[in-house]
C-alpha cells in the first residue's frame, strides 16, 4: 500500500493534494475583509513593507511586471502607475475570491489600461518563457504547497537579468521581539480575526504558517537552488518580514 506524501498546513500535517484546497478555503473566507485586516494586524506597516519592495524592484517605465499571489492588488496598482501605458502589469492569484476583490478594487480606482488579471497557480505559471522584467510575490510563497516548483516556474518566465522579489514573513532578529511577536500572533491575532472577519481559524493558520515558513537564510538557499543568482535579503521591522531578491542570469 502506497503512503500519500504530506505537507504542513499551519502546524498540521495534511496530504499534499489537500493543502491548496485548505489554503483556498482560508482566503475565500477572508477575501472581502483582507485589506482591512492587513491594516489592523500590522498597524498599516504592511504598506511600508510593500513600498520598499517596489523600491527594490527597480521597475521602470515600459517594463513588464508579474505580481504573483497579488491578491487585492496593492503592488499591482503602484506598478501600473510606474510602468505607464508602454508597460504591462499582470496580477495573478490562485484564489478566485481574492483575484475578484483585487480586480474590482483596481477597476474602481481607474487602473485598467495596462493591467491584466490571471487566475494562475504559482507552481505552473501560464506564461511564455522569459516574458517578465520583474516578478513579485508578497505574502504568498508560504501558502504554496511546493515552494521549489513555484520558484522554478517564476525563474522560467523571468527575462535574463530580470529579478524576483519575495516579500514574506520571516524570523525576528531579536529573541525579545520574537517572544512579543509570538504573544501577539497567537494571543491577539485570532481574536482580531474573529472580531473583524468572523474567522479565528484562518488567522490562527496565518500565525502557524509564518512559523513553518523557511527563515531568511533557508529561503535564500532555496532561491539559489532554484537557479537564481546574486540572491540577498533585506530585513524589515526587526526581521518580522524580509524581502528576498534574486536575479535570472544572463543580463
Amino acid at each position, binding site marked *: 500500500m502506497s503512503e500519500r506524501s504530506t505537507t504542513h498546513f499551519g502546524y498540521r500535517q495534511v496530504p499534499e493534494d489537500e493543502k491548496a484546497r485548505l489554503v483556498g478555503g482560508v482566503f475565500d473566507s477572508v477575501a472581502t475583509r483582507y485589506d482591512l485586516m492587513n491594516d489592523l494586524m500590522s498597524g498599516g506597516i504592511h504598506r511600508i513593507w510593500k513600498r*520598499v519592495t517596489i523600491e527594490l524592484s527597480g521597475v521602470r517605465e515600459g517594463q513588464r511586471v508579474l505580481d504573483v499571489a497579488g491578491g487585492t492588488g496593492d503592488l499591482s496598482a503602484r506598478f501600473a*502607475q*510606474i510602468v505607464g501605458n508602454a508597460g504591462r502589469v499582470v496580477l495573478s492569484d490562485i484564489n478566485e475570491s481574492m483575484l475578484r476583490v483585487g480586480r474590482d478594487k483596481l477597476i474602481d480606482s481607474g487602473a485598467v489600461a495596462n493591467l491584466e488579471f490571471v487566475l494562475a497557480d504559482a507552481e505552473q505559471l501560464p506564461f511564455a518563457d522569459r516574458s517578465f522584467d520583474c516578478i513579485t510575490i508578497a505574502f504568498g510563497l508560504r501558502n504554496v504547497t511546493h515552494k521549489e516548483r513555484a520558484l522554478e516556474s517564476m525563474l522560467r518566465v523571468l527575462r535574463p537579468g530580470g529579478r524576483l522579489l519575495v516579500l514574506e514573513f520571516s524570523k525576528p532578529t531579536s529573541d525579545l521581539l520574537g517572544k512579543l511577536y509570538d504573544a501577539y500572533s497567537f494571543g491577539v491575532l485570532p481574536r482580531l480575526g474573529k472580531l473583524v472577519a468572523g474567522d479565528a481559524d484562518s488567522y490562527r493558520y496565518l500565525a502557524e504558517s509564518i512559523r513553518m515558513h523557511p527563515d531568511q537564510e533557508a529561503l535564500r538557499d532555496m532561491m539559489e537552488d532554484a537557479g537564481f543568482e546574486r540572491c540577498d535579503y*533585506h530585513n*524589515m521591522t526587526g526581521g518580522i518580514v524580509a524581502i528576498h531578491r534574486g536575479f535570472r542570469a544572463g543580463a
Partner: protein
Amino acid sequence: MSVSTLNVAALAALERALNAALALAPATREELGKLRGKVFGIRASVPAVGVYVAPDAAGVRLLTHHEGVTTCTVSGAGSDFVALLGAGDKAGALVNGNLRIEGDSSALIALARVLADIEIDWERHLALVIGDVPAHQIGRTVRGSARWSRDAHASLLRHVTEFVHEEARLAPSRMETADFAADVQALARRAARLDNALRRIGRRLDALSARERAPRG
C-alpha cells in the same frame, strides 16, 4: 541588511504631502512632467540621510533605494541643505553654496526651480466645492487684499526709510554712503601711490649712501 521602517514611513508621509500640494498645482505638475524618467540623489553627511527624488506621472516619488543611473547627485552637510531651503534664490544658492553636485546640474536646477515655484490654483479647486461664481468672488477679494497688503508694505518701507535718512538723520542715505565709499577708495588709491613713491625714494637714498661709502680711487 535591514531597512529602517521609520525612515521609509517618514519619506512616504513627505511624498504624500508633496504630491497633495502638486495635485493642486497643475502648472507645476506639468513642468515636473518634463523631468520624468530622471532620478536625483540627495545625500546629507551630518545627519546621514540619503533620498532619491524621481518625478513621475503622479508627482514625485521619494525613494530610499535606487540602483539605476542617477541623473544628478547633490551632497553636503545637513546645515548646507538647511541654508538652501532658506535661500530666496534656490537655483543660485544650489550652484554657489557649499553643496557638491555631480552629474547633470541643469536638470537639478530645473527641479529646484519647479519645486520652489509651486503655484497652487486655489480658485479652481475652490470652484469644484462651492461653485464658479462664489469661488471667483473669494478669489478676487483675496487677490485684492494681497495686492493692498503688498502695496501697503512697500509704502511703509519707503516712508520709514525716508524718515530714518532725511528727517531723523539716524543713518546716511544710499547716495551719501556711496560718496563716502568712493572717497575711501580714492584715499586708499592715493595712499598706495604715496607708499610706492616713498619706497622709490627709500631705494634711491640707499643707492646714494652706498655710492658715498664706496672707496674712491
